[in-house]
């Protein structure tokens, strides 16, 4: 009973912290601060996993998200000029619309999950070691195994990696700016950004990039 009570207290505590941090993630205009808050949110999630009795998952959460992703994020932020990453001032309308949409989504959400049938359902009996279970399941090819998704995930990661490398490479040998295009006209377009953006600016009523739009507003 006491354990249950403690768990409840802890649960609400973690949830509260998590909500507070999450709010500061989206509301903070300083990106680094937001990143740190995000780290907190992710950590809090790990806490929830613990409470639910999935220590392995909690560990993975801390390792991958807190230790990996967010740290990477912070590095990225620190390596770039912070001025660029400052969130621009959202226009009033957009602000309201966003709040409305988010609020409505949240409202609907509450309504929907209110009657979640299995919310209080008796817990499925947990195996003694969820780590082992996870390991077996991930590598088994049978009806209970997840070997196939596991392999597919590896493909995703590989793809992301390759893509990341290609895109992140600063310039490639033989890129547009340095070589002569096939056709003289193609040169215009080869200065791609300029070419298409101009056309677009003329043609499409909607400007392409938010900064342009905001600048125009401001």
């Amino acid at each position, binding site marked *: 009973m006491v354990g249950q009570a403690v768990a409840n207290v802890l649960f609400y505590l973690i949830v509260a912290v998590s909500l507070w941090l999450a709010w500061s993630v989206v509301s903070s205009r300083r990106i680094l601060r937001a990143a740190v808050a995000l780290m907190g949110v992710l950590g809090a999630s790990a806490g929830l996993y613990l409470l639910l009795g999935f220590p392995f998952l909690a560990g993975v959460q801390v390792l991958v998200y807190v230790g990996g992703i967010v740290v990477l994020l912070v590095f990225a932020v620190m390596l770039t000029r912070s001025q660029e990453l400052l969130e621009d001032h*959202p226009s009033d309308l*957009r602000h309201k*619309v*966003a709040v*409305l*949409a*988010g609020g*409505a*989504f949240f*409202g*609907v959400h509450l309504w*929907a999950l209110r009657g979640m049938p299995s919310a209080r359902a008796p817990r499925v009996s947990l195996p003694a070691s969820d780590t082992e279970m996870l390991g077996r399941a991930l590598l088994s090819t049978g009806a209970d195994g997840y070997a196939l998704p596991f392999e597919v995930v590896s493909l995703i990661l590989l793809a992301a990696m390759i893509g990341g490398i290609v895109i992140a490479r600063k310039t490639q040998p033989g890129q547009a700016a340095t070589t002569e295009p096939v056709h003289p006209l193609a040169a215009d377009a080869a200065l791609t950004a300029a070419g298409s953006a101009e056309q677009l600016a003329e043609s*499409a*009523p*909607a*400007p*392409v*990039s*938010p900064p*342009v*739009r905001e600048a125009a507003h401001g």
Partner: protein
Amino acid sequence: MPDLSFILSHAWLIPALPLASFLLVGLVLRPLHKPLAGAVATAAVFAAAGLSWWLAFDYLHLPKTAGGALPVLVPTSVEWLRFQEGLSVHLGTLLDPISVMLLVVVTTVSALVHLYSTGYLHGEDGYGRYFTFLNLFTFSMLGLVLAPNLVQMYVCWELVGASSFFLIGYYYDRPSAVSASKKAFIVTRFADLGFLLGILVLGYYAFTIHAGMGAAAAGQQALDFAFLTRPDVLSQLQALQGQFLGIGTLTLAAVLIYTGGAGKSAMFPLHIWLPDAMEGPTPVSALIHAATMVVAGVYLVARSFPIFAASAEALQVVMVVGAFTSLFAATIGCTQDDIKRVLAFSTLSQLGYMMFALGVASYEHPLGYTASMFHLFTHAFFKALLFLGAGSVIHAVHTNNIWQMGGLRKYMPITHGLFLLATLAIAGIPPLAGFFSKDEILAAALHSGHTVVFGVGLLVAGMTAFYMFRIYFVTFWGERRLSHLHHQDDHSHDDHSHADPHESPAVMWIPMAVLGLLTIGAGFVPIPEWVRLVPLDGKLPEAHHGVDLAVAIPGTLAGVIGIALAWFFYAGDPQRANSAVLKLGRFYAVIKAKFYFDEIYLFVTKSIIFRLIAGPIAWFDRMVVDGLVNATGWVTRLGGTAVNASQTGQVQTYGSWLMSGVVLAVVVLWATTRQ
């Protein structure tokens, strides 16, 4: 129909000849060889005329029916247009006294006019075209005359209208001729609308009756005259309950059909086209606008007389309009300066005569019917002669204005003599043709108890004599006024004005002479004996014979007085006429302007129909209806712009949309899901 002679059973040959000639001349000869075209066309009509006389001869020798009347034959009937069972149109030939009579008149006058025209239009550009249409006209007119049903009548009716249109517009580079031809066609077309509606109304009820009769109607079609004039059908038609604006159905049908006739026969107020139609070549006026086509209206009423007789109101309309027109036209006729126009108004007036004669007729007093047809017969000859005479004069002096003529009897003795003959005939001087028929009409009016109409007839007879002799005196008597007048206004015609007018060539005066003979003789043809209104029971009463002196004397007297007045005013000192005109003042001016009817029509068409209806409709169509179409496109485009505006380029907005989409999805899904 047992043992009909060749021509009676092949009456279709008579219209077929001009038709064949029309095709031959129009398609082959016209471009190739013009003189030959004229010759062929003329020959064909002469052949048709010969056949008609032959046919008339054979017809009159047919055995009479039990009731003593000449038989009614339909020797040919070929299905042409099948609307539906019981309502199919057969092309055929209907031979009865009036159609045979008219057959003779039409072919004879047409043949003479064809002959005359070869001289009149000699060397003109449109020579071939002219004869093409003249043939077409002759064919259509014959088809009209022989029509055994209302639709064939209507078909040929329209065709004569069209050929009349083309012939009036013969001088198509002359704007006045062009507008006159349009006017003639459109006005008569407007009237034909009535005819068409009449056919629709009558067709519907007749068809209903026809369908109800079953076997009793076998072999007959609903719109056949033979069917429509059956006593049992007529009584059923008469019994129809339907009312439209308080008018009985039968009356309505009859009046509508009469409208068509009134248009063709230029009854008031549809008369305006006829005087203008004089823009056509004069032989055309003689044939179409005097002798034949314009009497089609009279013929139509006579042809469907049993229907009119079944409706007293309809006959009343026929009579009143006819009488009024005859007086009205005679009044205007006294004031016109164009020789052909005067003749045109006299035609109007005479047509009015024929109409009111029909209007006063009834089964009790059938004389009007006979008289009308008789007058139609005689009028055709003397009026054609008058026109050909006028044509001869115009041919010689190149003007229509009587005040530019004068003294022509010296130069054109034959024309003068024949013209005088015809003028006397129209004035009703015995023993010329006009006298007999006019006498009969007046008698019919008097004896049927329409005294007012009789009075009007008498008055018109006098006026006719007056204005006819007015143009006669002005044209043929006195001094030649042509040369100096001509000098004043047109120097380009010098060569004409210096030469003296001379008599027309033989191809022109010979037809006139033939018509002159007919003018003298036509009155003695026993038309009244042959053409009689057959009562519904088919038994003819005793024929009325001889001249009724009580009518003949006042009639002739009126003519004489008219001539005397004309002599007084126009034969001698022209000042007399001028002072009389001055005394009449505005009244005269109004009459001379033909009571401004042309202007009224012009106002209605130009200002009201064109400017107030057609113009706004065209505008409405472009601006409003089409505008709505364009507006649809515009709104669609606007929608496109609006949708595009949501494409702000900001991911945040897109996210908002996405979330809202989820929310909306939940709402809709929840609303539609049955628990």
